[in-house]
């Protein structure tokens, strides 16, 4: 029991980190809270399903194209919609939230609910970890999640675009003066954030099925992790994912499956009430929040 809690808690934490990292990245760079994030996650799953089952593409190609497609949708979301209401938080929230809702409900209308839609795993196999049976997809997911987060860290610290991202996150005015176009960066940040949502979708969804309902769940999970960790703090995302991830698995083990969501929701409220800057938030953020 303890060992399986340890293993599944870790897996759950990585899933949370994967789903949250895109939301955190977009917010950290462009200060856009993308309330359409969960919808983009569902869209990625659906796109991959269409490419796989309707167009019968190669498995990896289908997943790759789905990620690219969702990244483009994210970029378009900024270019054609958000750019008009930049700097007006009320409008930004309404636009992303409503577009996300529209997308999810549209997919639901076309029949995306229940267990009819699923993505196949990378490989159907079961491994033994510390005597606990774990299927291959979950192990792959842990590896992919860890690699991805490491890659992101390297990207933001060592590449030109990544450094520009960080510059704009720290001081938009100064970044503009050295020739960084904030709209360009914001477009990229939404594209990248959406792509990360899509990656999370294509590796996590094979564990269950694609359902429109998961849109709001994913959004809540991402928000929970980001708030607890402190928005735009990469270390915060990891620590918060571990905390919430294990708390969820424990609650499921001792209370029941419904409590997974309640844990995440409570994490949001408790953090905002008692430590609004999150575990790793910086003073600058605190001033923004309080």
């Amino acid at each position, binding site marked *: 029991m303890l060992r399986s809690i340890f293993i599944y808690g870790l897996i759950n934490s990585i899933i949370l980190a994967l789903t949250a990292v895109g939301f955190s990245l977009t917010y950290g760079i462009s200060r856009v809270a993308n309330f359409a994030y969960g919808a983009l996650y569902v869209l990625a799953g659906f796109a991959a399903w269409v490419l796989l089952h309707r167009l019968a593409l190669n498995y990896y190609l289908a997943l790759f194209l789905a990620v690219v497609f969702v990244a483009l949708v994210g970029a378009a979301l900024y270019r054609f919609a958000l750019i*008009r209401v930049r700097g007006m938080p009320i409008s930004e929230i309404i636009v992303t939230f409503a577009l996300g809702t529209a997308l999810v409900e549209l997919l639901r209308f076309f029949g995306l609910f229940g267990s009819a839609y699923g993505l196949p795993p990378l490989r159907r196999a079961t491994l033994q970890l510390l005597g606990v049976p774990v299927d291959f997809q979950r192990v792959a997911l842990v590896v992919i999640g860890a690699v991805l987060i490491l890659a992101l860290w390297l990207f933001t610290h060592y590449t030109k675009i990544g450094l520009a991202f960080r510059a704009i996150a720290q001081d938009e005015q100064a970044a503009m003066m050295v020739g960084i176009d904030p709209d360009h960066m914001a477009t990229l940040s939404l594209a990248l954030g959406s792509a990360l949502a899509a990656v999370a979708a294509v590796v996590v969804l094979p564990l269950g099925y694609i359902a429109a309902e998961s849109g709001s769940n994913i959004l809540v999970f991402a*928000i929970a992790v980001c708030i607890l960790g402190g928005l735009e703090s990469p270390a915060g995302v990891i620590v918060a994912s571990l905390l919430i991830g294990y708390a969820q698995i424990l609650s499921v083990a001792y209370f029941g499956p419904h409590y997974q969501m309640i844990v995440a929701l409570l994490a949001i409220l408790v953090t*905002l009430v008692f430590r609004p800057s999150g575990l790793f938030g910086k003073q600058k953020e605190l001033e923004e929040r309080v």
Partner: protein
Amino acid sequence: MAKRRERIDRPIRVLTEDIYALESLSRMIYVAAPSVFPVLFLLLLPLFTPSLYMQRVLILTAVYALLALSWDFIAVATGLVSLGQALFFGVGAYLAAILNLHFGLPPMVTLLVSTFAGAAIATALVAPCLPLRGVYFAMTTLVYPLLLARTIEATAVLGGTDGLVGIASFPNVWVERYLVLAFVLGATFALRRLLRTDFGLVMRSISDNDQAVRASAINITVYKLVAIYLASALGCFAGAYFTHLYMFVGLSAFSLDLSILPIACAVVGGMGTLVGPVIGAFVLVPLAEMVRDLGTLRVVFYSLLLVALVLFKPEGLMSFLERKYRQIERWVQV
């Protein structure tokens, strides 16, 4: 030949804002019409909607009008965006059900208690989040209805996923019809009046620049609490009313529809005007009902409409109507 459109205030506006020129009947009508006609219209409407279906649409419209009004009031008075109007609705709805089923209180009493006590509960829930700004407040309000719904689901209290049935209905259809319409009218006028007082002026200033208000020796938390209390009272009334109307309450009392459609109504009607969101509800809700057969597609429909309006026509119907009414427009040659 180039032309441009010129807008001139109608002469009566030039006279004064407060002391109306009442020397002629037509001017009196001009001044009074914008408030009198909508009231008459609303009060007569139930008499001319024969079918049960139409009555239900009317009632649903009024309920959404309350939620939209409540949303707009929060935005005007505190500058905060609520994504969780369903919280207020749900709290009122469940409270009315409990009061009726467990304490045997009659509908009119539960309605009264649910409105005031429910608002106190909802305000107490939201109070810790009041210091938060913008996005963070929006996130927490998005969380609340979900949290309550999931808790009811997980713990199976209050009927769990089945909901509670067998709740008393209103004594007669006229009470049922006029109660909610009267509440919409009363609340709209009362809140508008409130915002015009000095107290309301301080409230509006908080959304402009809360720092300057604090530097003016004013405790903004008190004002925000009052604003949330009033707004949640509207939502709780709507919820409690709905419970007695359908003699049932379930998890749908926390549904996303109740949070997003009011925002759409407010945007359509004109944010920040209070009357606008009510008008918006009377435009949007019947439209949404007409396409109810489309199922979830109607959510797509009004979500997209909402996005389009926010992006391209954020002023809303209200200021458009006001301009048409108050100003003369004509084309002049340049």
